[in-house]
């Protein structure tokens, strides 16, 4: 997962209701509309799902193999449940696209990236230059998270 280059025009592919502004993946964008978590659990062929803040991301764990896209919605940027949802999916081995959608702002990008998001579809298009800076906020990190980066504590004891 994830290198540091991203395709800022992925949204132009127009395969989803969201406009994906930043994407850190090389594979094809999944061309399926997303369904709710409940629908995903009931219907056996869904390959794209959308998690709302109140949903339990763990309900998706039995279906991870067939999912190519998980969208996590942030109706307001201050509701941080989606950060846990993202990490839980990555910890369970999900390798498909994990897309942050909704009220996604510049100053949340670096933390979202650390939690395993590899695509971003903000409601309002973000300033590209500010976003590039934001993704690069942390030269090093204190916590182990879903991005697999070595922590400062690990670097100190290499």
């Amino acid at each position, binding site marked *: 997962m994830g290198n540091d280059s991203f395709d800022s025009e992925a949204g132009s592919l127009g395969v989803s209701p969201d406009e994906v502004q930043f994407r850190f993946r090389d594979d094809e964008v999944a061309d399926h509309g997303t369904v709710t978590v409940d629908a995903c659990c009931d219907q056996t062929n869904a390959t794209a799902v959308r998690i709302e803040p109140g949903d339990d991301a763990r309900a998706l764990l039995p279906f991870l193999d067939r999912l190519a896209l998980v969208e996590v919605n942030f109706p307001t940027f201050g509701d941080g*449940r989606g950060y846990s949802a993202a990490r839980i999916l990555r910890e369970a081995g999900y390798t498909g696209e994990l897309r942050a959608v909704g009220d996604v702002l510049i100053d949340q990008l670096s933390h979202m990236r650390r939690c395993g998001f590899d695509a971003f579809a903000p409601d309002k298009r973000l300033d590209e230059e500010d976003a590039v800076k934001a993704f690069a*906020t942390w030269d090093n990190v204190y*916590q182990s998270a879903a991005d697999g980066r070595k922590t400062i504590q690990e670097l100190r004891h290499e």
Partner: protein
Amino acid sequence: MYKYDNYDQQMVDARVEEFRGQAKRRLEGKLTEDQFKPLRLMNGLYLQLHAYMLRVAIPYGTLNSAQMSALGDIADKYDRGYGHFTTRQNIQYNWIKLEDAADILADLSKVEMHAIQTSGNCIRNISSDHFAGATHDELVDPRPYAELLRQWSSFHPEFTYLPRKFKIAVIAAEKDRAAMRLHDIGIQIVKNDAGEIGARFFVGGGMGRTPMIAPMIRDFVPLDQLVTYAEGCLRVYNRYGRRDNKYKARIKILVHELGAEEYTRQVEEEFAHLLDQGVEPPRPELERLKPFFADPPFEDGPKTVDRSDPDFALWVDRNTHRHKHDSYVSAVISLKPVGGIPGDATGEQIRTMARLAKQYSFDELRVMHTQNIVLPHVKIADLHALWTELDAAELGAPNLDTIEDIIACPGLDYCALANARSIPLAQRISERFDKSGKTAELGELKLKISGCINACGHHHAGHIGILGVDKKGKENYQLSLGGSEAEDVSLAKITGPGFDEDGVIEAVETVTDVYIAQREDGERFLDTYRRIGMSPFKEALYGK
């Protein structure tokens, strides 16, 4: 004490730059005030009644003289010549200009300080025992563990938009000097039957409008799982803490609504999962941290003082704490001069304390949650010289843990949330008891005043608590009795109808008279209250 390495410095510098960028984007109109607000809050910048307030983090209340001195300089350069030490061992400045904020953060970063996460719905500064590493009665120094948690909680990617703010305290003594069980997470470092050191977790305490004492949810977490267990506690809260109502969003409400048992079950489940995820820092990190907090080179010396000066003897009796080395004590500098503003110090006084720390206390100071300052390692032989200098700087008030040692929030004089003033009340009460000479007779008596139900002045935990409310446009004060933030933690109960400002001061006098009349040998106010109950106090206050 802990010293930054290049990594730590880089992290703080990165945040200073990030904040400069955010402030710039706000000025350019790329960020709305609503979007900017949580960002400035996470950098300690509040908008108060009259100006911006900047809160600077003092990790686990420990700082060196260069840092203290810089705090004094900031008071002079950017504020009105003073700073205010807070109940979470931080300092805040009440008269800051927004355009100066980034420069202040840059000044702070030169002395390894910052304002990161001193506000906002994130994990706040970790607090601890102000006598850590000095006191005679601790198991180990709790600060290496607090530092491990400081790093873990700084810029945590998953826990930056929690339902509400989150406060952690770490202690390592049976005596609780940090109000540990009134925190979102209270950690007590303990030894188990096998002689191993580990962490006891209390989760879901807090004050505010719904005070709760944290229940213990795990009696022993091995040290190589400490961070992982904390991560489990936080993840359950981040996922399930209430977000529909800001007044019910603290973890204490989640723990209360689920029940401690069910919350614990969920944490244990998450913890078991996280153990396989490698979130724990490598064990050598804790060993790297410990030497930063090693004992300074203590020397044997005199173990008693010359008590011929009664003023000095009184200060020694009241304001010093027994040290682990018998030729030293920890000396408390009271920021509660009679008639003064609790916790305030001028830039000059702050620099004086810094200088004295360098001269007499191995370059180290502590901030107490009771808004006083500690010089943790003072030679008994140096006490008279220290006291003489403190007295000259108006820092020698001999009133630790007395009724004059009042905790008070900034109240309506500064705070946008307050309903009533706290500071003038504290000033009048300390003046009154000093004048009548009753302070000495009352002994240990913890009086705490909050100017609104958010309880920043810890009134729930006061032996005597006062809560300011707004009653039909007038300031009204409710009196409560029987609280404690210590190891005998309890929540105070309201006596009955409230009082106006003069009335509540009379009421404080009345309840202390009941205590004096009813106390048995050696009893503190709190002990007498617990023995005789509320009724005699109520009768004295309101009649039959």
